[in-house]
């Protein structure tokens, strides 16, 4: 018998219908993938399942008994735990404190038994082959990827029968993502149910036993993973046939160097990076996570300090703050990694988000020219097809893909023509991904120069004109033409280029 059975589940937020009669069924011992565009209802569905939200209508049966948890604790009582995309970790607590939060082992004095807690953490890490993370580090000092791993540990520490992984791989570099996939498999083989959400078809293929597709708040179909084609799944997800995910590659690069970088370093992460980014070019940046990519992007944007020379459109520049980087037509704009934290003001409207970086352009003597602002905002929203009811809609209520488009819009309004894109498709659905790639190519053909980091190898291979692979804070290899393959990127990332 299936452990989870869902019939006709509905959920509304005000006038918005998030779930509209979703059906679902899954059994212990399987990895069950949920697919669907952003806004299709997957997130709402798993939030209900994990007790973070309650549902309006429909029935959920767990073990054949009615299930309506009012909070995550109650869900856990029935054996369900979720690893959320919005990380639930507390920045000021250590890794181990977070993993065992509220369930710490205690001494007879009712104090936390630290050595026991450490022991349990190490056992957990060992049993599931966790990538090594010092258990006493404070979470605020961890990278996004490390936090995601700790989040997984926190979910596992609850020893659930049903574990929900919500896009847990999207923040992870390739090797850790592979680890997580085998972990999901291991858990299913232990007799648990893993509900797995990912936008990466390859991952779903690699581990899922069954696949359920969501569209517009209900489930379209459930398939055996082995018996269904990618095309069919994509068609079901978007309700039509997607022409193609990756745009045709056009050689729009000119000989003009937009961004010249020499001896760019900020030890220990960056140790002398050299490259030229040309006008009209999409230059991919690859490599294992933590080899200087993030530092390079942050420093180029002026958010961190680095040594070395940077020349922008032939003029040497030195940005100490993002404000300097963004000012003027010869600037640099960045799409950051953590869009919810760094890129968007979630509680502000789309209009305010778009105009913030360029607010000076609309103001005269400290007064805002609202008509001019409205005009430009409307134009940007239209050209990026941002799906919002009005420019006044709060950014946090948009779907992930649309939030990402707002960040793109923000960047384009600055008039900077060198764009730094740091993992711009992370957690973005397949349809929006296609649009983003299309947009990148279009911008390149208009003369923008784009530096593009992605943790997803196929994206680099299919979108970038050249790919530079960073290792230990240096350019390990610059791949061009037919050399740009997933194997070559990985090889350069892992081995010494000479030895390989």
């Amino acid at each position, binding site marked *: 018998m299936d452990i989870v059975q869902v019939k006709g589940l509905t959920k509304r937020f005000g006038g918005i219908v998030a779930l509209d009669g979703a059906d679902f069924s899954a059994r212990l011992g399987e990895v069950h993938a949920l697919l669907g565009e952003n806004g299709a209802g997957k997130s709402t569905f798993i939030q209900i399942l994990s007790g*973070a939200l309650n549902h309006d209508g429909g029935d959920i049966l767990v073990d054949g008994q009615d299930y309506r948890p009012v*909070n*995550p*604790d109650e869900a*856990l009582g029935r054996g369900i735990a979720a690893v*959320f995309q*919005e*990380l*639930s*970790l*507390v*920045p*000021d*607590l250590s890794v181990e*404190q977070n993993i065992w*939060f*509220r369930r*710490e082992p*205690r001494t007879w*004095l*009712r*104090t*936390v038994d*630290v050595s026991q807690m450490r022991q349990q953490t190490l056992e957990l890490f060992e049993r599931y082959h966790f990538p090594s993370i*010092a258990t006493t*580090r*404070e979470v*605020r*000092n*961890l990278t996004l990827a490390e936090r995601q791993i700790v989040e997984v540990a926190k979910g596992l520490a609850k020893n659930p029968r049903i574990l929900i992984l919500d896009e847990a791989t999207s923040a992870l570099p390739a090797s850790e993502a592979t680890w997580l996939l085998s972990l999901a498999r291991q858990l299913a083989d232990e007799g648990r149910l893993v509900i797995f959400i990912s936008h990466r078809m390859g991952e779903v293929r690699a581990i899922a036993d069954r696949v359920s597709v969501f569209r517009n708040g209900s489930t379209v179909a459930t398939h055996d993973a082995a018996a269904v084609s990618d095309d069919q799944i994509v068609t079901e997800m978007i309700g039509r046939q997607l022409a193609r995910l990756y745009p045709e590659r056009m050689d729009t690069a000119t000989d003009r160097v937009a961004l010249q970088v020499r001896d760019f370093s900020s030890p*220990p992460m960056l140790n002398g990076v050299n490259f030229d980014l040309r006008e009209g070019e999409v230059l991919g940046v690859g490599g294992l996570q933590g080899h200087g990519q*993030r530092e390079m992007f*942050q420093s180029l944007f002026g958010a*961190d300090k680095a040594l070395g020379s940077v020349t922008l459109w032939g003029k040497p520049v030195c940005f100490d703050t993002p404000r300097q980087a963004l000012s003027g037509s010869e600037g640099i704009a960045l799409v950051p990694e953590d869009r919810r934290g760094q890129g968007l003001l979630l509680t502000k409207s789309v209009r305010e988000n778009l105009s913030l970086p360029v607010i000076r352009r609309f103001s005269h003597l400290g007064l805002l020219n609202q008509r001019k602002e409205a005009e430009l905002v409307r134009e940007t929203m239209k050209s990026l097809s941002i799906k919002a009811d009005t420019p006044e809609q709060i950014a946090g209520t948009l779907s992930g893909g649309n939030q990402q488009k707002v960040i793109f819009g923000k960047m384009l309004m600055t008039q900077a023509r060198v764009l730094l894109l740091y993992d711009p498709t992370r957690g973005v659905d397949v349809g929006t991904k296609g649009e983003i790639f299309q947009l990148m190519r279009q911008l390149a053909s208009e003369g923008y120069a784009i530096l593009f980091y992605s943790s997803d190898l196929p994206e680099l291979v299919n979108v970038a004109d050249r790919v530079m692979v960073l290792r230990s804070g240096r350019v390990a290899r610059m791949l061009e033409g037919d050399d740009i393959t997933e194997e070559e990127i990985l090889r350069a990332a892992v081995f010494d280029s000479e030895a390989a």
Partner: protein
Amino acid sequence: MNSSSKQLQSAQSMNMQSRLLAHAPFLVACSMLVVIVAIYGSLQTGVFTIDEINLNTAAAMTLMLAATGQTIVLLRGGIDLSIGGMISLGTVIAATRFGDDPANILLWSGIILAIGFGIGALTGLLISVLRLQPFLVTLAGWSILNGIALMILPTDGGKVPEWWIGSGYLEFLGLGTPVWILLALIVFWCWFRATRLCTIIKATGSSEKSAFLSGVSITRINIITYGLSGFFAALASLYLTTQIGGGSPNIGTDYILPSVAAAIIGGVSLFGGRGHLFGTIVGAYILTLIGNLVFVLRVSSYWQPVMSGVILLLAVLASSYAEQKARKRGS
């Protein structure tokens, strides 16, 4: 092999550094205290005697008790201005209800502590249910409690028995009552900070959303933290009656901002999640000793608030500097 052990070493030294950085605000407070004591000691004889320690601890104790509750609320990411009203209320209830009978005094002490916790808990509940800023709710609470205190005792007065006053000046092993209270506070904190509850309070202060997603009941945590703050304010008021020998319907106001300042100087973050009571204790000593310093320097007493302000500024600078350093390292 060699390079990996080197890496390990550098990782360890980085870890050491970041630990030092994490404690930087506290260490800065400690050094400020040392400097102040040094100046004080060089100008005045007999500073380094047990008597002097007893005396200064007695002077700092009301503030320390009030600041203990404030520290707990600050760790949760809140602030409690109502302690001013609670301290006043506590002293006037004691001054009008104590009488001479020890049993009665014990009873009313218990009632005052219960009122402190109860009103604090109610404040916490209001903050959660009405979803209002703690600053506003506790500001209102201060005003209301202050008003009630004035209704009970319109001017300074009332009385507490001599032996009750004397209990504030007992000595055991050469150490006076306030030093023993301080030791009790330290023991309490050593225990409290290792409890699950303290972790939850700090977690809620660090990120309310994360804590909520991890199953923490924010309402419950607010009730407990503000309740504890009210409890410690009531405790402070009981101690204060041994110092002033009666009730004073406005006296608590003098402790509101110093209680926050003592915590901040000691490295407790105004934004929640970071800090500990030892810092607050150091901060309370600093604020108290500045008064002595002004006295022995023979300058106008108006310099005391000026110096307190400068020290507060220095402390905040130190912690924000450490914060920035730590963040650089982290990212």
